[in-house]
């Protein structure tokens, strides 16, 4: 068996012990703490055409987390979600949702799960309200006597009350997305699975959806949020997993993941060339010089040598406008882990 660099990076991460979430946590039978809400082991999906969409996925989503499922388009996020929701059968491996295996347990598990999968789908000839009534009727555990009230509350929650009587075909993409979200909120849910919920929304709509996600998480709902937007995951998630070409690259808490990207030292100065020389002499590597700006990797992690560096710059007559370390982002982490740009499709 040949090992790709991708796998090695995961193994090394685990042996270093820098990651606490994911497989490490799942491996020992945790004596305390609630069980994971989603757990997959070797989950694999090969489509009839031979396309390997998801490849040996081991995922653990802790209860109460807002879990970001991050990956470029085509990396297998939606396919994973379809397997978790029992819409498609895995080629091999196991998917467990709320403690029961899927797709065998859809009947007992899915009433406790709200889902938005690959965009909303509505009956255009029905009003927004009647769309929700239709979806609520499909749930055999939903009480018809409380239906009207719950539909009203869900509409209210996503801000669609005013447009509830309008035919869904007249809705804008943003309104459709909200209505889809409302359908996921017809009942109190233990788990919300949201597949790119801010797709097609304007920045204001995105902010509202993110606020709603935080609010739901505050109520105790575990949120599984897939996205190809790194900043979205950074803004709302406590945990994240990164997918690339159907494989899990890494999973853990968001701060841990971001920490894997080394911070870069950034100096803003009109004397960029001179600054670069000083920094190089002080052991800073990978120096990039741009207009009014120099950045590079400090020799050692941490802020220990930074004051010295700053002093050296000033001593050499470099006019320092700003000096600091830019925090690593998930994007840097992704690039560091996969060695490729984030926009590469699988």
């Amino acid at each position, binding site marked *: 068996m040949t090992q790709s660099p991708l796998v090695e990076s995961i193994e090394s991460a685990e042996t270093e012990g820098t990651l606490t979430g994911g497989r490490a946590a799942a491996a020992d039978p945790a004596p305390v703490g609630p069980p994971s809400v989603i757990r997959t082991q070797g989950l694999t999906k090969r489509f009839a055409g031979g396309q390997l969409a998801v490849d040996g996925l081991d995922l653990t989503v*802790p209860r*109460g987390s807002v879990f970001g499922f991050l990956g470029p388009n085509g990396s297998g996020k939606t396919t994973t979600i379809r397997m978790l*929701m029992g819409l498609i059968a895995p080629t091999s491996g196991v998917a467990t949702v709320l403690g029961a295996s899927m797709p065998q347990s859809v*009947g007992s598990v899915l009433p406790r799960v709200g889902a938005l999968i690959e965009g909303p789908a509505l009956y255009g000839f029905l009003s927004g309200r009647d769309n929700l009534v239709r979806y609520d009727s*499909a749930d055999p555990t939903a*009480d018809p006597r409380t239906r009207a009230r719950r539909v009203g509350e869900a509409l209210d929650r996503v801000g669609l009350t005013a447009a509830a009587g309008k035919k869904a075909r007249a809705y804008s993409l943003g309104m459709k997305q909200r209505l889809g979200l409302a359908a996921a909120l017809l009942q*109190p849910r233990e788990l919300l699975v949201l597949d790119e919920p801010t797709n097609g929304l304007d920045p204001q709509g995105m902010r509202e959806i993110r606020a709603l996600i935080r609010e739901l998480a505050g109520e*105790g709902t575990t949120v599984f949020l897939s996205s190809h937007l790194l900043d979205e995951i950074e803004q709302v998630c406590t945990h994240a997993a990164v997918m690339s070409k159907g494989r899990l690259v890494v999973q853990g808490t968001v701060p841990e993941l971001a920490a894997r990207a080394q911070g870069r030292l*950034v100096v803003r100065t009109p004397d960029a060339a001179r600054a670069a020389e000083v920094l190089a002499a002080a052991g800073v590597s990978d120096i990039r010089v741009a207009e009014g700006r120099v950045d590079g990797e400090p020799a050692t992690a941490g802020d220990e040598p930074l004051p010295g560096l700053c002093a050296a710059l000033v001593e050499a007559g470099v006019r320092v406008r700003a000096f*600091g370390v830019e925090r690593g982002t998930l994007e840097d982490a992704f690039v560091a882990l996969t060695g490729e740009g984030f926009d590469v499709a699988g």
Partner: protein
Amino acid sequence: MSQVEVAPTVSPASMASMASMAPTVSGRVPAGVRPQTAAGFLALFRSEITLTFRRTRTIALLGLLAALPVLLGVVVKIETGDMHGGANGPAFIAQVTQNGLFLVFAALAVALPVFLPMTVGVVAGDSIAGEAATGTLRYLLVAPAGRTRLLAAKFLAAMVFCWAATLAVALSALATGAALFPMGSMTLLSGDTVGLGGALLRAVLIAGVVALSLAGLVAIGLFVSTLTGSGIAAMATTVGLVILVQILDSFPQLHAIQPWLFTHQWLTFGDLLRAPMYWTGILQNLGLQALYLAVFGSAAWARFTSRDVTA
């Protein structure tokens, strides 16, 4: 990228606190399996029937079917002179001028081979495939509707449509017949005479038999509907099948297989216009429909419960 003063060092301690920061289940969301109720279970069946009749397409099809007897009645009225004793017209047409009630049977006999199965093919063929095409299928399934329950609801709704379609033809024919021709006691095919009440009762019975005659086709349409993700393709295939089977039924060389074609015994409903009623053909027809229902219903179930829903 955001600029911060200190380099990022995430200590294991801060990670642990991060993890424990997550809200616990003791929040407002109740955990555990929610039981299903009888009312909740049946809601989908009601929803399915309501949805069928809220589609503009359904109403248009019913309107088309209702227009057919009107057309037929007007033509018979205009052509009355030539129709006398015309043995080569459609069944029951000759009797319409004597008794408007016969327009019900004439219209059903005209509608059953082509128009009724076409509309039923559209509704049954589109039932699952249409939901797959618009993506609503995935949301029904994660609701979770349950694949068997959804299929049963689709079948029920399609059967209700068969019944409504038959009724549309029959009621429109009754109204047209009453408007254009004399009504009253009816001379049966066997020569006996029954009163208007008895005749209406037979009309109701025949409408029921005609609706049930379409059960086999509904099962076929449902099966086709589970095979594709395109509503149009499923509708076209189902309607095409109806036409193909009718053609096969007309070749004398194929008489060996003809008794097994689901359309073969459709017109036996006329046997109910005898005294006493002659049930053999009708029971054979209903038995055949049950057979098709069992075979294609099982096939639809096997296919739908195992298939990947990727739309």
